[in-house]
């Protein structure tokens, strides 16, 4: 009887810790992706990939729904998809920035070429 009491206490403790840990983990993933999304908005990534950002927002909602329905696999898949989607959005934004830089330099070079042609014509 004495042993049974300790065994029950142990299992209760283990169960509580496990549940808390599991719940904490789920909440953290949503927070993590939400922080990433907020940062993407803050940095202006949405301008580079508005459609992707829309899909990501929908996936966040789906993930929350899955979490609420305790569909762990779907939730994990969605979280993973959101992360890789955000990676794409970020890179697309960087590509856009680089394209703009390249465009500016190319435009400058075009003007420089015109100027050089004009100078060579004067020579």
């Amino acid at each position, binding site marked *: 009887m004495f042993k049974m009491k300790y065994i029950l206490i142990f299992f209760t403790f283990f169960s509580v810790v496990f549940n808390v840990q599991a719940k904490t983990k789920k909440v953290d993933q949503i927070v993590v992706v939400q922080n990433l999304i907020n940062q993407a908005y803050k940095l202006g990534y949405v301008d580079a990939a508005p459609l992707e950002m829309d899909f990501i927002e929908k996936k966040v909602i789906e993930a929350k729904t899955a979490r609420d329905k305790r569909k762990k696999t779907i939730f994990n*898949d969605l979280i993973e*998809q959101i992360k890789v989607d955000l990676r794409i959005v970020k*890179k697309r934004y960087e590509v856009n920035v680089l394209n703009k*830089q*390249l465009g500016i*330099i*190319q435009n400058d*070079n075009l003007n*420089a070429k015109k100027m050089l042609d004009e*100078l060579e014509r004067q020579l």
Partner: protein
Amino acid sequence: MKYIYLFLVSLLLSSMLQAKQSKEIEYASLQKDYNNLVTNLKYKPYAKSEKQAAKKSVEVLINGKVKRKAKDLALYVARNNIAYARLVAEAEWIENEIILEKNKSLTFEVSISKAESQIARQDAAIARMMLIAQQEESQRAKERADQAELIAQNSIQEAALSKKETEAAKRYAQAQTEQADLAKQEAEIAIEEIESLRRKLNSIATEQTDKGLMMTLGDFVFDSGKSSIKKEAVQNFSKVVQFINTYPNNNVRIEGHTDSTGSNQLNLKLSQLRADAVKNLLVKNGIQASQINAIGMGEELPIADNASNAGKAKNRRVEIIILK
């Protein structure tokens, strides 16, 4: 009932087969997408690690090493990896292009700088040439101005000279005019004198004296203070010659007289010379020299008072006497 089970089993198998075919098509599409990425020459040198990751995810999926439940996610991730690798490759390609463009920009900058400096040198050379040309032009202008000033000065000098010459010419002309007037006046005076002399000579009267018939020549016949007879008197001496020729057989006595001015000896000599001059003139006019006797009487026989000029003038005379 048996057929129903068979139908359901066959339907299940058919749907399983269809699902498998669908997956294979998706894998083939994935593989193709990956192949397009790695064979794209533009992206070939870029995103190597990302390509490797994409390759790994595709291979894992195709080789069937993924659990059935995880296949959808693996497929999604694999597609995403390929897209990401493409984006990374694009980004690296752009970065490389930026480097190339920047190099090109530097090259342009250098070329522009060179061209600008060359143009600046040309401009400077042109400016120098223009400056030299301007200096030369200003020098020429200065020379022209100097020359013009010189010409102006010469003109002024010439004008002044011309004015002086004109004034001198005027003065000379005036002097000439005055001289001409004077000459004219002198000529008129001379003519008048000649006329007066001629009238005097013509009006010389003769008078009967104890010595004989006498004609008196006043001192107007002689040059002043000299013994020579005036040229005009010589030319009008015909009256005297005519007078003597009236008496060709009589001897003629010519007596010279002076006033009392000067010494007696000088007056005697002057009177003799004047008497001789009359004699010589008469001889030249055809009178025989042997017929004439010329004597200087000096101041000894005055006919008027020597105290006055009028008296002295009367005393200065030559008397021509036709002897009886």
